């Protein structure tokens, strides 16, 4: 009986430790890997307070130290995952004391998280729309909520991407072009994955559908379109062969090793511009600006171009 009680007690203690370790937000080092991927805004809110307090404490302590420890929080479009991770390695190696924490997701989700109070130093979106929605200097027709999060002087157009039509291995429907896809969609003969209307690549796809005068609503209710919540989800669905084709960026196609059938022209969906800006809620605006400057430099540019981005600045 005694052994059973001891074991039960040990298990209870172990469980408590596990819960506290997972639940509490401790040093910024923990946030790096785990919290970077979370979508929920609530954890981000609570961690904002503990984290900024810790950073303030650290800054006070570090005023005496030669190297200031700064954590930069970068919200970037999901399509930048692979390249930004590579750049992080390069930047952190060259800049002691700087740690970069990423939050990759659809730009629509990121914009909502920023709006709801998430901590963020630098925002890179996959379309001007989401950046405009946060920029007080932008057209009020787009920034309908009058949000002011962007430091306008820091805003630049960082990259250009291409919207592409991709197919699973073996190209089951023998697709050859967007033109042919449009015809097959009209005939109801193909199953396509696209981003939903909150996702920039989904918005570009909507433009392409409109260009071909196809009704997205009709296609959707006929069950010919399936929606992903970000471009990586769409890419995975194509890779898994769950759909006949998908519309993603050229960079995602490259990173996932998918066959690109066709690229959309500027006439079909406009230019795919990725704006970047430092946010006015940033606790480290200077460091954020320094990182943004690095992103326009030669090293970062070669990383971006290696997967198919075009650098604009």
């Amino acid at each position, binding site marked *: 009986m005694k052994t059973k009680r001891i074991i039960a007690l040990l298990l209870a203690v172990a469980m408590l430790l596990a819960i506290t370790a997972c639940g509490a937000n401790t040093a910024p080092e923990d946030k790096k890997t785990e919290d970077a991927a979370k979508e929920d805004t609530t954890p981000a809110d609570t961690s904002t307070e503990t984290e900024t307090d810790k950073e303030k404490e650290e800054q006070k302590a570090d005023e005496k130290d030669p190297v200031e420890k700064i954590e930069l929080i970068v919200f970037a479009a999901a399509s930048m995952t692979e390249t930004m991770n590579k750049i992080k390695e390069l930047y952190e190696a060259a800049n002691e004391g700087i740690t970069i924490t990423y939050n990759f997701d659809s730009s629509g989700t990121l914009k*909502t998280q920023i709006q709801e109070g998430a901590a963020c130093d630098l925002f890179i979106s996959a379309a001007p729309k989401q950046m405009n929605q946060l920029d007080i200097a932008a057209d009020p027709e787009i920034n309908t909520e009058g949000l002011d999060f962007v430091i306008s002087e820091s805003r630049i157009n960082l990259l250009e991407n291409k919207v592409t039509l991709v197919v699973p291995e073996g190209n089951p429907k023998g697709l050859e072009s967007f033109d042919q896809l449009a015809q097959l969609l009209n005939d109801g003969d193909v199953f396509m994955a696209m981003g*939903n209307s909150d996702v920039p690549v989904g918005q570009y796809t909507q433009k392409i559908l409109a260009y071909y005068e196809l009704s997205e609503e009709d296609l*959707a209710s006929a*069950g010919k379109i*399936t*929606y992903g*919540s970000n471009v990586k989800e769409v890419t995975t669905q194509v890779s898994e062969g769950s759909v006949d084709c998908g519309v993603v960026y050229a960079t995602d196609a490259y990173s996932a090793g998918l066959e690109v059938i066709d690229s959309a022209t500027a006439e079909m969906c406009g230019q795919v511009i990725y704006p970047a800006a430092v946010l006015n809620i940033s606790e480290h605006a200077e460091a954020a600006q320094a990182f943004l400057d690095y992103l326009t430099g030669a090293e970062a540019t070669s990383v971006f171009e290696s997967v198919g981005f075009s650098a604009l600045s």
Partner: protein
Amino acid sequence: MGIDWYPLWNSLRIAAISCVLVFFLGIFFAYYAAKLPRSVKGILDVILTLPMVLPPTVCGYFLLVTFGLRRPLGILLAQWGIKFVMTWYGGVLAAAVVAFPLMYRTARGAFESFDETLAYSGQTLGLSNSRIFWRIRMPACRQGILAGTVLAFARALGEYGATSMLIGYTPGKTATISTTVYQLWRTNDESGAFFWVMVNLAISAVVLLAVNMLEARQKKAVRK
């Protein structure tokens, strides 16, 4: 909103079919698991209860890895025209997998608290095993069985994680109430999301009320 009622029909259909499947499978395993030798029983129990303990996304991942259209089993089934990925009956698979442990455990609990002497009396009277099972054991355990069925139905109706990963969100084809609410919220259609939340609440309330009434009536009958 409410023009497209497909999610309602789809969710109910998926929940109902999964519930029926899980009812028979759960009872089957609960009954025969009790008869297995100790060593096997323990391992089987863990495997059968696992989907209840695992996060739904983990279950969804396993289902994708097993039935994905690039995987051996998925390719084989596809040759017979069966695709669990991106189809509504894939939703039935996902819901059944996560709801199964609920039925299994509850049924097992009910069977284990069954007074075996009733079964023995049946045997001495010359009844076949299946008659004993369906006419003596099941009615005696019906409260536990009913509870398990309700839990399984509720779980199947509310399934999101595994469903979303396996069958995605295709309006008019694989959309369920839970995936629809998520997508409407993601695309900032607050009123649409709220509508479906209310629909789901209404269904759940009706189901639970019906079950309560049923239980109350049975208790009355037993007392008499």
